[in-house]
């Protein structure tokens, strides 16, 4: 219509650095933290491209030369196992003109050849060669390999990457969350988890932090999941009520959990954490007894697996593994799969079935969580009130024997902790 609109020069707005302690307060966070594009860019830089981010599991590349496409935030990453069985995290970007060198989700390859001009890279990232080498006299080949994620480390098969050359080690970053991974692996008769069932990729129009906070929000299940609790006999509802003896915990470094063990211990029934009984999983129970002895196995099978959010993107949810991937300010993908325990085919089958029922775009549970993420995102775009209130349970917050903050099952202790850690990361230079 108005093709000839005059160009009105706009004076540049002075770049205003966010003042973090004015956006993140002990009991409140400001709505713009979920809606400001500049904050999202800064989060990529200060969180996603700096801290340890979960990338994948070693069992996804079981053999030498296997690879699988992964990501760190919006950045595409290829996870490879090279000839020497070493795990590499490579940027999926040709150092020549920037093309993608790998376009398949997973497979086996000794090398990747860029389709644009034929440069070839070994699966550890090194440049193997380029066609017509006569034009490249004097070029330093060692500098023309695929970009490598600066630091790669794994813990019990869980592979993490950090774009920062320096910083805390993976174990320092995991801190107390390491115990959650240990506890998870303990539930396997062979002490190991495998990721072999493939992922569902569930996209939501929401900021990534709504997902992180929700994973250990023990306040919402009774309401958001009322529909499925009403029609299926899942024991989950009572775990997250105001009578529950379960606790919410902030473990430091942004990690949080709902510790449901007090409730399971009260029930004192092996496998009740999985809403089943030992009789229905005879092979699993037998292997657990063989591995750990009857008493220890019984203890493990009463306690069950953890419900832990490892900041910023790995959520271990009893029987599932979630990987949170921010794509944009208000676009996030949850990659979800069933956890599988080595040497437990009968349990694994049930974990796959229950996972398929509960998560993903049509899941009995997750579709409703996703609805909440999307509606909160719409909500914070409205202007009044500007602040979100996170004060639930602050007056009854206490410290456990390990010095971690705990609250009641439905308290917002995890969210407050996550935000405190967030603030410290964002305040760093």
């Amino acid at each position: 219509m108005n093709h000839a609109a005059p160009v009105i020069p706009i004076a540049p707005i002075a770049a205003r650095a966010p003042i973090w302690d004015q956006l993140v307060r002990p009991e409140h966070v400001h709505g713009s933290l979920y809606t400001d594009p500049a904050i999202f860019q800064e989060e990529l830089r200060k969180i996603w491209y700096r801290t340890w981010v979960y990338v994948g599991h070693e069992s996804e590349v079981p053999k030498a030369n296997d690879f699988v496409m992964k990501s760190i935030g919006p950045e595409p990453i290829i996870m490879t196992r090279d000839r020497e069985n070493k795990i590499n995290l490579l940027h999926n970007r040709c150092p020549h003109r920037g093309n993608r060198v790998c376009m398949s989700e997973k497979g086996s390859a000794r090398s990747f050849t860029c389709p644009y001009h034929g440069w070839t890279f070994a699966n550890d990232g090194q440049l193997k060669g380029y066609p017509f080498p006569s034009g490249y006299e004097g070029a330093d080949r060692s500098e023309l390999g695929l970009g490598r994620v600066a630091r790669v480390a794994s813990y019990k098969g869980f592979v993490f990457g950090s774009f920062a050359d320096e910083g805390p080690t993976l174990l320092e970053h995991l801190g107390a969350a390491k115990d959650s991974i240990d506890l998870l692996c303990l539930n396997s008769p062979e002490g190991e988890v495998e990721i072999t069932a493939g992922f569902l990729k569930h996209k939501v129009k929401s900021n990534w932090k709504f997902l992180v906070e929700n994973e250990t929000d023990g306040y919402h299940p009774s309401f958001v999941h009322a529909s499925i609790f009403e029609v299926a006999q899942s024991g989950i509802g009572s775990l997250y009520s105001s009578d529950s003896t379960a606790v919410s915990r902030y473990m430091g470094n942004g990690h949080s959990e709902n510790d449901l063990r007090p409730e399971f211990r009260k029930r004192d029934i092996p496998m009740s954490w999985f809403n089943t009984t030992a009789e229905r999983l005879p092979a699993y129970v037998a292997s657990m007894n063989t591995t750990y002895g009857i008493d220890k196995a019984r203890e493990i099978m009463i306690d069950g697996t953890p419900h832990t959010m490892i900041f910023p993107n790995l959520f271990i949810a009893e029987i599932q593994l979630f990987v949170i991937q921010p794509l944009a300010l208000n676009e996030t993908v949850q990659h979800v799969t069933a956890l599988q325990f080595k040497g437990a085919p009968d349990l694994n089958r049930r974990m796959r079935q229950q996972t398929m029922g509960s998560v993903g775009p049509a899941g009995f549970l997750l579709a409703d969580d996703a609805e909440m993420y999307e509606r909160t995102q719409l909500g914070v775009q409205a202007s009044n009130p500007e602040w979100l209130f996170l004060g639930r349970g602050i007056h009854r917050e206490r410290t456990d024997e390990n010095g971690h903050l705990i609250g009641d099952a439905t308290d917002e202790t995890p969210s407050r902790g996550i935000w405190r850690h967030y603030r410290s990361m964002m305040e760093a230079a």
Partner: protein
Amino acid sequence: MQQEVNDRGLLEEVTQFIYREARLQDDHAYDEWEALWSDDGIYWIPANGEGTDPENEMSIVYDNRSRIALRIRQFHTGKRFSQTPRSRLRRIVSNIEILERDGDQIRATSNAMVFESSVRGDTVWASRNEYRLRRGEGGLLMALKKVVLVNNETALYSMAFLI
């Protein structure tokens, strides 16, 4: 014994069945839709391609008959928030073909394009659908409905309605 699939009368019957199923889904007529299933019905929406091994690989939906019933009961609570308010839906089903007929068993295929309007916004879903139909006393029943979404290799928004 495979029989002639080039039977206009049967094609018409299958087409009318599939149209009716589409209308019941669009109208959220959950009980009538559930009544279209045989006792051993499987409702399958694979993820990541055609779906080769639903017992071992994650699917978006892999419901046996009792889980189909659970899904319907969940809708009926009125607290299935991903469908409260309900998505407004209208779909076009086309390219219906009978691929195989073996006595009372019929294998048919169709294409579908679903327009969804929800709180999130408008979304278009496209799929190839595969049916195994069986003749029951009151007419045809679904023993299998497999919905292969064209974009099931990518990240998908919630789709908690009947597709």
